[in-house]
């Protein structure tokens, strides 16, 4: 028993090979039917449900000894949960890890897609809390599965329309629903809608794992991913008034940092690797003294 609890006696990447095979089968099915949620016999993991167990299982199932793993949460490599998951794989799989998007073969993420466009051969693994985009419109799984089967997505459009009628806007800012290859409506996981366009025709394979809800879904490379909208209210992403205060980068998603209790704010890149790479190239934002190019 004592020997068993030591990391060395666990199988490579924690899960036993039988479980990995089961997960890989679900992944293959998911790739074959883009946007379709494939049920799988999700396992308990040594981290809590809701903290990335789905993503961790997908990563564990596809990880090989030669992979280079990057883990981000909120776009950053140094957020606590990203640190914890990265350490987990260092311990149970002994793989090389990196914070550099370009060097990674597998990137596990929570809530963001890296700013640097992904390339062929990379895999982006999303941690998904609620895989069902219709869940908040219809709580019953039996109903929502039927709605997907019949391609009955009217309810979603009604919801978006009601947003516009009430607020003048579609009031969904993250987990903004998308339609995949003109067939399945899919939840992009709670990434800000800013990241939705990055999913479209991505060169990388995108895998989504929901541990507690026991679902896996996927977007193979070069898949059409369209955010739902209306002709007179086209889909729009968030825009920021200022560039990043550290690297001067624009067209990126920014975190708002509260500087003091007198309303002082600054905005910095949510993607820490993107920000650091730019600064390494000598680019500077206003806070670091130089004006961005």
């Amino acid at each position, binding site marked *: 028993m004592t020997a068993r609890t030591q990391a060395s006696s666990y199988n490579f990447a924690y899960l036993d090979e039988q479980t990995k095979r089961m997960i890989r089968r679900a992944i293959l099915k998911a790739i074959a039917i883009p946007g379709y949620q494939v049920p799988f016999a999700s396992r*308990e993991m040594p981290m809590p449900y809701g903290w990335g167990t789905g993503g961790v299982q997908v990563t564990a199932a596809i990880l090989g000894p030669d992979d280079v793993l990057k883990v981000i949460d909120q776009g950053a490599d140094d957020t606590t949960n990203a640190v914890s998951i990265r350490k987990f794989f260092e311990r149970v799989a002994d793989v090389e890890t990196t914070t550099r998007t370009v060097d990674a073969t597998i990137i596990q993420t929570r809530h963001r897609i890296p700013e640097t466009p992904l390339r062929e051969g990379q895999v982006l693994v999303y941690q998904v809390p609620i895989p069902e985009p219709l869940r908040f419109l219809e709580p019953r799984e039996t109903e929502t599965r039927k709605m997907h089967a019949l391609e009955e997505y009217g309810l979603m459009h009604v919801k978006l329309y009601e947003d516009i009628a009430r607020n003048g806007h579609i009031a969904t800012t993250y987990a903004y629903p998308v339609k995949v290859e003109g067939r399945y409506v899919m939840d992009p996981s709670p990434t800000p809608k800013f990241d939705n366009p990055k999913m479209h025709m991505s060169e990388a394979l995108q895998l989504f794992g929901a541990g507690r809800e026991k679902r896996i879904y996927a977007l193979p490379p070069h898949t059409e991913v369209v955010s739902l909208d209306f002709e007179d209210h086209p889909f729009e992403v968030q825009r920021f008034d200022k560039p990043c205060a550290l690297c001067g980068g624009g067209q990126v998603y920014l975190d708002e940092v509260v500087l003091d209790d007198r309303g002082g704010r600054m905005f910095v890149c949510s993607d820490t690797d993107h920000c650091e790479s730019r600064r390494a190239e000598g680019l500077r934002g206003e806070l670091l003294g130089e004006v961005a190019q």
Partner: protein
Amino acid sequence: MYVSVKGGEAAIDNAHRLLADRRRGDRSVPALTLDQIAEQLVLGVDRVMSEGSLYDRRLAALAIKQARGDLIEAIFLVRAYRTTLPRFGFAEPVDTGAMLVERRISACYKDLPGGQLLGPTFDYTHRLLDEALDGDPEVEPGETREGATEPVSRIADILGGEGLIEEEISGNDEPDDINQTPLEFPLSRAMRLQSLARGDEGFLLALGYSTQRGYARSHPFAGEIRIGEVEVEVFMPELGFAVPVGRVQLTECQMVNQFKGSAKVPPQFTRGYGLVFGQSERKAMAMALCDRALRAGELGEDIVAPAQDQEFVISHCDNVQATGFVEHLKLPHHVDFQAELGLVRTMRTQFEQAESAMENKEAAE
């Protein structure tokens, strides 16, 4: 000057060190041994085994110690361990009729074959704090009965003999396994019972209670509760017969519920069933009430209450899932919050613009 939020790694390491320190507490107080936990906090150990779905007293005791007495955390530790164990097969159905009974009561009969055996129960204690337990007072050994006794027949067999209770026919097929199959609703009763067996005691207790207060009333009688050890047997294809692999302590509850009949079947009582590891009567009874309530569809009853709704009950009864998702709200969500901030600000600007436009218009008029 803003310093980028670095140091997550050091912060985690330090938090773990502090946790280990707090877990140990005052070093002048002797450390708990696993034997002490397994022997003297046995009902906590039973709960961890039962909801952790792993029959191992030592590991359950270890989990309780590591979790600083937080039983849900301990259950989680045990589950995360059991999930790594290989599955080598499934046991034959255990025969609770052949149980070595330590406690057995029925509320349906004054006396019945095998008798009413109170066993080690809190039931008739007066809940007065016993200051003597601050020390280690001498405790007399319990009275036990030696030798062969009459068989302790199960209530279902007693009522079943007269055809007064519905018969349950067991299949010989490999049972469904919630560890192997993703949940797909509607679930078979076997899948529901497996989920309930590892379901949170508090959640099932509240749901069972709700059925007693009119939310899916089922007129239950505690037909029988029995606690004791049974032999677990596994069929060995190489040998051609089943061999015992060990003994487990179980609590079984047979609820006898309001009768049902139809044009074809004469009226008979229906059943709700609870079975859990260790001594855990509250959980077994709550489970039996929930099982009965969840059979509403099969028994042609209207589904009107939460306890009858299998998607509601089964999807939310697992405390490892529930605690994980509730507590994940502690993780950073600032990226999504930023998106919401942006929208609220835009909407406020538009609101102010509309208001000032209105004021200007009024002023002009």
